[in-house]
C-alpha cells in the first residue's frame, strides 16, 4: 500500500472537519475523493500534504508511519500537491514560481537563474504551455496560471500526487492535457489522489473512489462497479432524481428582455447579436477567453462598449459602471467568486445585503432587510450557523448561493451567472440549477457562461456560441450537442 490514512480526525476548534476517515491509495491508481462542499476533502488532502497535522489518526507511507508538521516534510517524503486555492504568486516570474522553495543555486549560494530558466522551458513544454519562463505570472490568463500550477506539482519527482479540484478553472482542452499528464504518472506507477465535483471526468479518469460526507467516511467503490447515481446518493444522502430541471417549450420563451444589437466590445472583433427572452436561460459557450466575460461585463457595466446598443426591457442601457447595470435591475455573479464577488472578512448578512448598497444618498440609513435575508437563506438552503458568520467559513457552494441571495433580496430583474457552479458540489449544483430555472419561469431571465458544455446543454434553453468576441452560432437545447458547439467554437461554424 503506497499511502494509508487511518481514522483521521481533524477539528478546528469545535469544528469537526474530519472524524475517523480512512483512505488507502495503491501505486499506479488514480483514486478519486468525492464529497459535498465542506465534506472534508481539502482538509484530508492538506493533512496528507503536511499542511495540517491530524487531531488523531495515523498516516503511513509505504508501511512506515509518518508525522509531518510542515508541508516541506511531506514534499521531501514524496508527496506533491496541487492545492485547491491558487498559490501562484502574481509578482514572481513563472520560473520563480515553479522553483519556489527549491531554487537551484550557484556555487556562491545565489539563485542559478540560467538553470532555472532552462528547466522551466522543459517543464512548461511538458504541460503544453508555450511561455517565456521570465514572464510575470500575474499577467497570465487564469487557465494558464492553473496549468503552471499543475506543472509545478507534476514536475516534482514524487510518489504521491494530489490534485484538489484542478479542473475548476480549466477549459476543455487544458483539462484533456491534464488527464494526459495524470495517465502518464499513473503509467509510471505513481499514486494519484484526485478531487473534482465533475462526475463525468471521474469516470473517465479514475479507477477507484472514496466518498466523504460531513467529514465522515461514506463509502469506497471501484469505478467500474459503480455508477453516478450510486455515488451521488452516497455523497448527498438522497438520490437526485434528475440533475437538471425540466424546460418549457420554445414558444413560452417570452418577449425578449435583453437584446444585444451589433455590439462590439473593446479589444474584441465582434459583432455580438443575441437576445434573452423573459422566461429564458441562455448560455454563452466558446473556447477559453473568446469574449464571454467581456460580453457579460459589457451588459453589466457597459463601459467597455465600442459600438452597438444593448436594450434591456426595450430601453437602451446607456450606463458606464456596475451601479448602472444594477440600477437597471441586472445582477451579476462574477467568475472569480472570492476576488470579485465576496467580502470574505464580512458576515454572510453583510455579503447578502451588499446587493442593497448601490444607490443615491451616502448619508441615508442602509436597509438591513433582516427578514428578506433570513427568508432567502431558508429558500436557498444555505448551510450556515447563523447569518452573522463570516462568509469565509462557508463552502464554495454556499458562498455561491449567498451571492444568488444577494440579488434575490434586491429583487433583480435579470441575472448574469459566470461559471455558476465552479467548485460547487453536485448536490448544491442541482439546487442552483433548479433555482435558476425557477427564476426564469417567474420572469427573471438568466444569462449563463460556463466552461462545462454538459452544464450548458443541460440547463439552458438556448446556447449562443462566441468566437473572438463575435456570436458565430446559436442552438436550441433540443439540437445542441457538444460536437456541434465545439465545431462552432473552433471554426466559427463555417463548415
Amino acid at each position, binding site marked *: 500500500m503506497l499511502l494509508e490514512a487511518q481514522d483521521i480526525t481533524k477539528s478546528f476548534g469545535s469544528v469537526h472537519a474530519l472524524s475517523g476517515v480512512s483512505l488507502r491509495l495503491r501505486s499506479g491508481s488514480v483514486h478519486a475523493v468525492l464529497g459535498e462542499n465542506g465534506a472534508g476533502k481539502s482538509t484530508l488532502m492538506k493533512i496528507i500534504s503536511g499542511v495540517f497535522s491530524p487531531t488523531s489518526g495515523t498516516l503511513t507511507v509505504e508501511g512506515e508511519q509518518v508525522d509531518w508538521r510542515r508541508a516541506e516534510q511531506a514534499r521531501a517524503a514524496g508527496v506533491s500537491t496541487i492545492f485547491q486555492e491558487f498559490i501562484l504568486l502574481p509578482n514572481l516570474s513563472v520560473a520563480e514560481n515553479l522553483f519556489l522553495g527549491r531554487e537551484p543555486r550557484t556555487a556562491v549560494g545565489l539563485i542559478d537563474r540560467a538553470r532555472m530558466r532552462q528547466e522551466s522551458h522543459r517543464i512548461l513544454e511538458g504541460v503544453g504551455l508555450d511561455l517565456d519562463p521570465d514572464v510575470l505570472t500575474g499577467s497570465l490568463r487564469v487557465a494558464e496560471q492553473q496549468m503552471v500550477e499543475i506543472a509545478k506539482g507534476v514536475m516534482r519527482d514524487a510518489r504521491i500526487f494530489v490534485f484538489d479540484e484542478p479542473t475548476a478553472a480549466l477549459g476543455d482542452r487544458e483539462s484533456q492535457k491534464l488527464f494526459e499528464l495524470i495517465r502518464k504518472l499513473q503509467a509510471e506507477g505513481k499514486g494519484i489522489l484526485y478531487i473534482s465535483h465533475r462526475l463525468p471526468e471521474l469516470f473517465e479518469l479514475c479507477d477507484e473512489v472514496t466518498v466523504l460526507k460531513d467529514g465522515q467516511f461514506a463509502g469506497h467503490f471501484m469505478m467500474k462497479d459503480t455508477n453516478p447515481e450510486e455515488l451521488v446518493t452516497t455523497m448527498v444522502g438522497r438520490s437526485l432524481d434528475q440533475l437538471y430541471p425540466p424546460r418549457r417549450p420554445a414558444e413560452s420563451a417570452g418577449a425578449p428582455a435583453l437584446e444585444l444589437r451589433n455590439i462590439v466590445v473593446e479589444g474584441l472583433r465582434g459583432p455580438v447579436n443575441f437576445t434573452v427572452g423573459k422566461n429564458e436561460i441562455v448560455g454563452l459557450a466558446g473556447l477559453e477567453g473568446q469574449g464571454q466575460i467581456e460580453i457579460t461585463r459589457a451588459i453589466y457595466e457597459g463601459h467597455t462598449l465600442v459600438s452597438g446598443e444593448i436594450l434591456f426591457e426595450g430601453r437602451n442601457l446607456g450606463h458606464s459602471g456596475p451601479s448602472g447595470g444594477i440600477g437597471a435591475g441586472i445582477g451579476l455573479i462574477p467568475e472569480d467568486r472570492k476576488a470579485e*464577488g465576496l*467580502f470574505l472578512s464580512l458576515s454572510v448578512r453583510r455579503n447578502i445585503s451588499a446587493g442593497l448598497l448601490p444607490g443615491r444618498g451616502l448619508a441615508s440609513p442602509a436597509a438591513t432587510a433582516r427578514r428578506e435575508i433570513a427568508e432567502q437563506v431558508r429558500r436557498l438552503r444555505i448551510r450556515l450557523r447563523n447569518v452573522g458568520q463570516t462568509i469565509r467559513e462557508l463552502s464554495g457552494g454556499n458562498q455561491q448561493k449567498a451571492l444568488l441571495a444577494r440579488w434575490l433580496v434586491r429583487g433583480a430583474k435579470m441575472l448574469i451567472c459566470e461559471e455558476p457552479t465552479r467548485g460547487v458540489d453536485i448536490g448544491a449544483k442541482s439546487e442552483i440549477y433548479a433555482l435558476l430555472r425557477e427564476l426564469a419561469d417567474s420572469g427573471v431571465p438568466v444569462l449563463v457562461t460556463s466552461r462545462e458544455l454538459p452544464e450548458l446543454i443541460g440547463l439552458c434553453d438556448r446556447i449562443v456560441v462566441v468566437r473572438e468576441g463575435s456570436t458565430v452560432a446559436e442552438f436550441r437545447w433540443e439540437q445542441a450537442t457538444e460536437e456541434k458547439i465545439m465545431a462552432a467554437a473552433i471554426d466559427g461554424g463555417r463548415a
Partner: protein
Amino acid sequence: MRTANATTAIRLRRLSALPVVVLIIILAVALGLSSPYALSAQNLINILNQQASLILVTIGQVMVILTAGLDLSVGSVVSMTTAIVSHDVPFAVPLAIAAALAVGLVNAIGILRLGVHPILMTLSTMTAVQGIALFVRPIPGGQVPDWMTDYASAVVLGLPLPVVCTAVLVLIAAAIISRSRFGLHLMAIGASQESALLGGVNTGRVVLVAYLLSSLFACLGGLNLAARLASGDPLVGASFAIDSIAATALGGTQLSGGLGGVTGPVTGVLFLALLGNGLNLLNISTYYQMIIKGALLIVAVSAHRRSQPGL
C-alpha cells in the same frame, strides 16, 4: 451539523471594543487604589477635556482606516488649523476648514488617481502641510476669536462644552459608521475593493469622502485645541497621527480595514489618556511611562488578532 466555532463577524464587530473596555476597567481600578485623585470627578473631567481634540481626530482616522487606508497628515492639519485661526483675519475659521478639506482632496486624488499608497501619500502631505503651518505661524502665539475661548470655557450641566460637543459628534459618527450607507460602503471597500466596485459601490467617491472627513475632523480637533490654548502653535499636532492610529487599533478596528467602529477607538483614546494621567499621578518618570505604554499597547492589541497577515 457543526457547532459554533469561529466568532461571527457580528460578534467580532461588537467584541472588537471589548478587550480595551476590559483593560480600561482594570486600569481604572488599579489607579483608583493607588491614587485617590485618579478617579476624582474633576480629574476625569480634565482628562475628557484634554482628549477631546484627539477623539475628534480619531473619528476621522477610523473612517480612513476602515477603507484599509491610513491618514498620517491629520497631525499637520491640526497644527495648520490652530496656526490659521490664531490670526486675526476675517473668515479665519472658514479658511481653516477650506484648507483642511483641500488637504483631504489632495490625499484622495493622489491615492485614487495617481495610485500612490495611502501611507506615502499622507506622509507627503503631512510634510508639506507642516511646512505651511510653520509658514502661517512660525511662532506659537496669536489670538483666537473670543467666541472660541468662550466656547472652551463654557460649561453645560457640569461638563465642559467641548466635552459635550465631542460626545455628540462621537454618537453621530457611530451612527453613520454602523448604520448609514456610507458606513457600509467603507467596510465593503476595506474588505475588498474589487468586490465593492463590481457590487456597484462608487469606491472613488466613498474613499474621497472618507479622506475629506478625516481632514475635516482633524480640523475640528484643531479648532477645539486652538480654543483650549487660546492661541496657535505650528507644532502642536505632531503626535496626533501616531496617537490616533494607536487608539484606533487599540479599539479593535483592524488596520487592514473592513472591520470596526468608532466607540472602540474612542475608548482607546481614553485608555491611553487614563494611563498617561495615572502614571503622572503615580509620578513615574517619562522613560518608564513610555516603556509601560509600549508594553501595554502590545498586550492590549494582541487581544485582537489580525484576520489576514500582511499590511
